[in-house]
């Protein structure tokens, strides 16, 4: 008899099969996504009983660890009495000039372009004609009864309409700060100075497009290639 006796063989085959289990589990863990968090065998100090930003806290009624300022109080340096800078209002009317804290410098314009691209382009389009990708998608969704689900999309206004060109900078600033009709407010996301930067960049876009329209033969047509046409 030149082979191992059966009990021996069975035990060996059994061990080999059991030994296959960990590699299979490991391979599965490495090749698929898991919805369960990893098991913390060794806790170390991984989860400390302290609260970090945006964590939950059952001590408070709203369940948030981050607290809001008590209503009716003002934090130091947050009084915001300068209505020109913080609200775009000078002498009880929309300001027509930029405030001292945000002068129209090339730096401000560059910042404005970046911020406009992040926050406004999705709806208003790269040049501001109201033709952004979100607008196109929302119109498509609204037109499709199966996907509409109550969509009532109002097209974003073109910033090159005559009535917007005529608006003072303070009013444009207020539109970003508090929103207008169906457009939401951006004051919690864009800092005050960046909002003025966006206004400066919008003015620049309006002037550029007005000049373009005056030069181009197709008067009144949105000119999406305008950026390349500038001398």
């Amino acid at each position, binding site marked *: *008899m*030149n*082979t*191992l*006796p059966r009990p021996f063989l069975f035990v*060996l085959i059994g061990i080999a099969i059991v*030994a296959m289990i*960990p*590699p299979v589990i*490991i391979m599965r*863990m*490495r090749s*698929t*996504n*898991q*919805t369960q*968090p*990893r098991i913390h065998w060794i806790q*170390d*100090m*991984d*989860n*400390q009983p*302290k609260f*970090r*930003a*945006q964590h*939950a806290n059952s001590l408070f009624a*709203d*369940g*948030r660890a981050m607290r809001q300022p008590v209503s009716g109080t003002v934090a130091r340096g947050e009084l915001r009495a300068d209505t020109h800078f913080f609200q775009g209002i000078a002498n009880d009317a929309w300001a027509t000039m930029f405030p001292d804290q945000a002068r129209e410098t090339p730096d401000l314009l560059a910042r404005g372009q*970046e911020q406009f*691209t*992040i*926050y406004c382009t*999705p709806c208003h389009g790269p040049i501001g004609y109201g033709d952004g*990708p*979100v607008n196109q*998608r*929302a119109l498509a*969704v609204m037109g499709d009864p199966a*996907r*509409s*689900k*109550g*969509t*009532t*999309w*109002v097209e974003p206004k073109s910033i090159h309409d005559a009535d917007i060109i005529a608006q003072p900078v303070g009013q444009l600033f207020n539109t970003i700060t508090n929103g207008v009709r*169906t*457009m*939401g*407010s*951006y004051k*919690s*996301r*864009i800092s005050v100075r960046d909002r003025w930067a966006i206004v400066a960049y919008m003015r620049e876009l309006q002037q550029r497009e007005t000049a373009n329209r005056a030069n181009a033969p197709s008067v009144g047509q949105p000119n999406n290639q305008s950026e390349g046409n500038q001398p």
Partner: protein
Amino acid sequence: MRTSKDIDGPLETPVRFVFPQWSNLLLPTVIGAILVVPIYAALVLTYGLSPVTHNVGYMPIQPIPFSHKIHAGELGLDCRYCHNTVEYAAKAAIPPTQTCMTCHAQVQPESEALKPLWESYGEGTAILWQRVHDLPDYVFFDHSAHVERGVGCATCHGRIDEMDVVFQTQPLSMGWCLECHRDPEPNLRPLDEITNLAFDSLRDQTAQVRRGLLDISHISPSEDCSTCHR
């Protein structure tokens, strides 16, 4: 096997034990085991305990089936439209309900999937988004330090704009952090490509450009323990 019963003669005669022939196979088996078992154990332990096995691919179920593929990919929203603090703060804030409402007040307000959003909006409660990336509490991490120095979101989070559900693509282990802190050059990109996930810092720019980024901004990430454990 032969026993004493098989042999005639007085019982006192001691029976010589003869190893059966198969026992010749035991020695190679044992030597084989001594060679194979350590290799096996080493492989199972390295791969089984590796952070890549444990941490990568964690994809918790979110209360709202929010899709980055639709919002960041197809609608082309910049990451900062929602994670607006990422440039100047340690945290990349998860957006508040208000941010979703800038669109969803009009877009698909009656969708089943958005019910928790409207509940949260009406009652002022928080949406219980599940954390995906979670470093241990003894580690200090700062987004702005990386984003402002030219490390893009894609380097640490992968192609978020192609994911319907966010999952972790990097191990976020100490070794992983240090690998880049020792040699950040291959991961640097110009600041205006930070949120462009399609931009590949190795494919889309030459080594010379990357060296330039490194030298001009004097980027030298620290390896001191107190940088990350403070």
